[in-house]
């Protein structure tokens, strides 16, 4: 499915982001259409996470425009962007370590003031049964995979239309990575959730994604369907050879 026609849900146009005087994004264009899984792959320091953070308004883009459902969000503060039902699971999971799993999920649902909490929590337990068993355990005591599950579940508790995930496979065992990617695919298929995924694990990400972008040094160098990029010799040489990790 490469439904690139129609107006995009998220449109990133010519975005330049700086850290002080250092330019991190040198004019990036990315489209995410409703119902798509779009992945952004690239090496360390390419600017993948910066792009995701820029969409979320922290740091803000110095030039360019980011629109969500046609609305300009380039200069919006992060908490207002979250209110537009864009949920983000930031890099390094960032769950609340001293709060229990239940409280972490409640924090995720704070936009609606726990109105749909029970209903949504049940959905999370179907998706990640492990979380239900760990409900009263402190977040910091979970294993890495469980923490990642919690981070995704917490983001989903906000009932997002667009879910942005930053390296969900970071530091996880292959079996857990598979579980998490299966869950993302499931969410997209059954609920039509739009997903923007930043990954270093190119093989899994490209297999999962409908469309993909490759970023090198703050510039998008390649784009295409996930399958096209998987078979592209340049991508294979740069990101896939030397073992499927």
């Amino acid at each position, binding site marked *: 499915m490469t439904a690139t026609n129609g107006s995009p849900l998220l449109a990133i146009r010519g975005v330049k982001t700086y850290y002080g005087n250092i330019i991190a994004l040198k004019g990036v264009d990315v489209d995410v259409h409703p119902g798509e899984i779009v992945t952004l792959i690239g090496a360390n320091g390419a600017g993948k996470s910066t792009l995701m953070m820029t969409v979320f308004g922290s740091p803000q883009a110095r030039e360019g425009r980011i629109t969500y459902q046609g609305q300009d969000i380039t200069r919006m503060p992060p908490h207002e962007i979250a209110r537009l039902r864009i949920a983000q699971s930031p890099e390094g999971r960032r769950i*609340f370590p001293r709060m229990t799993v239940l409280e972490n999920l*409640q924090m995720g649902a704070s936009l609606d003031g726990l109105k749909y909490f029970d209903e949504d929590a049940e959905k999370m337990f179907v998706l990640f049964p492990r979380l239900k068993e*760990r409900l009263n355990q402190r977040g910091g005591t979970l*294993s890495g995979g469980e923490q990642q599950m919690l981070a995704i579940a917490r983001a989903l508790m906000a009932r997002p239309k667009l879910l942005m995930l930053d390296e969900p496979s970071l530091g996880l065992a292959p079996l857990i990575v598979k579980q998490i990617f299966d869950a993302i695919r499931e969410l997209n298929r059954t609920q039509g959730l739009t997903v923007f995924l930043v990954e270093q694990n190119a093989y899994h990400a490209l297999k999962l994604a409908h469309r993909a972008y490759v970023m090198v040094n703050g510039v998008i160098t390649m784009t295409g369907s996930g399958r096209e990029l998987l078979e592209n010799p340049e991508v294979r040489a740069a990101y896939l050879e030397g073992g499927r990790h």
Partner: protein
Amino acid sequence: MAESSKAAAAGPDFGKAAKDALLSGIIAFALFGPLVGLRTAQNMNNELVVLNELGKALLITAIVVAGRFLLSAFVFPAIASRGKKSKAILTPEEVAAASARTRNVSRGALLFLLVYPFLMVLIFGVQGSIKWVDNFGIQILIYVMLGWGLNIVIGLAGLLDLGYVAFYAVGAYSYALLAINFDLSFWILLPLSGILAAFWGMILGFPVLRLRGDYLAIVTLAFGEIIRLVLINWKDFSGGSAGISSIPKVTLFGIKFDASPEGFAKMFDLPMSSAYYKIFLYYLILALALLTAYVTLRLRRLPIGRAWEALREDEVACRSLGINTTNTKLTAFAIGAMFAGFAGSFFAARQGFVSPESFVFMESAVIVAIVVLGGMGSMVGVAIAAVVMIGGTELLRELSFLKVVFGNDFNPDQFRMLIFGLAMVATMIVRPRGFVSARQPTAVLFERKAISGDLVKEGHG
């Protein structure tokens, strides 16, 4: 390590402890025997003579032996076994049991606090109770309240504020100045002082919003000093370092606590004594402290309280969940400052005199120490720490019995802070996260679940 844990399981190992103690005793005697036991002095003929003070050296050795024996028989095994008990998984039953325990302790403590002044009157008589109600009761409760107020800022929101005493000063001076210049009563000025302090909390909050950790601590410290220096130097406004005296006292619905015919003592036909006013003040500060506790406990369960705790845990994650971190920080500063303002106006009314001397950095440091020592975020812990810190320093004033041991020229006052410092170091070794370090979850689902073995066994991913 293995031996000591075995000992913990089978009761204290006295043989090993005795061996330990004997060894320490030999070392102590080798050290103190010549150093303390032999003293050189000049006699009448200006000759150097050696005085034998072996008794002192033996006494020190005995203390070392006894101390070491107690340590290796009881304290070390207890510390060794404590580490193993801590568990990550809390079942709902355990959480419920823990919170029931806390509730029972709190209820018992509350009951004690309610009858405390009457107990003191019974034991020490009306006049004798003043010291116990005033120096201990009121003094400790002021710090309990300040600790609980700062606990919101440091313990819940995780913002290290080293200038908390500034808001205490704002509250105290608000009451002092408005009561003297506008003749307003305490009951109007109490909320007003709180509001003014909260306002100053916001003023401090705005510029430091972007700061965190050490940088925030430094700026708040500077803010505390600025307030104090302004109070010293703006003589027309605050009376400078001379302070403000004859601040009106608190009245009980218009009843004054003085010798006048309408005074409290005459009205109830009691003999004139300042003890009644002290007891009244005691209940007033108790009520204010309990108000602080109640508001904090309620707020913890509301979205704003949850947001504070989430902010302490991870600011980036907070923002990505749609929490307005700016407002969250400002409310934490403002509400924390408000309680300091309440406490400050009470302080001014109780002392009848305020000066910048009372609001030095040391005060901020003591309040921060109470919060850290008690266990950040724990109400019970902070209360215990306030009792230990403030009650402890007061008690240490009464160390004159040590003169029996160290001779008449021993001045216990000089050793007060030393002993106190040692006690703090010891506390941080034994309980590095404070007296009460476990965080009580704000929500628990009571549901029994069987956890299958294969899920539990799986390693960390």
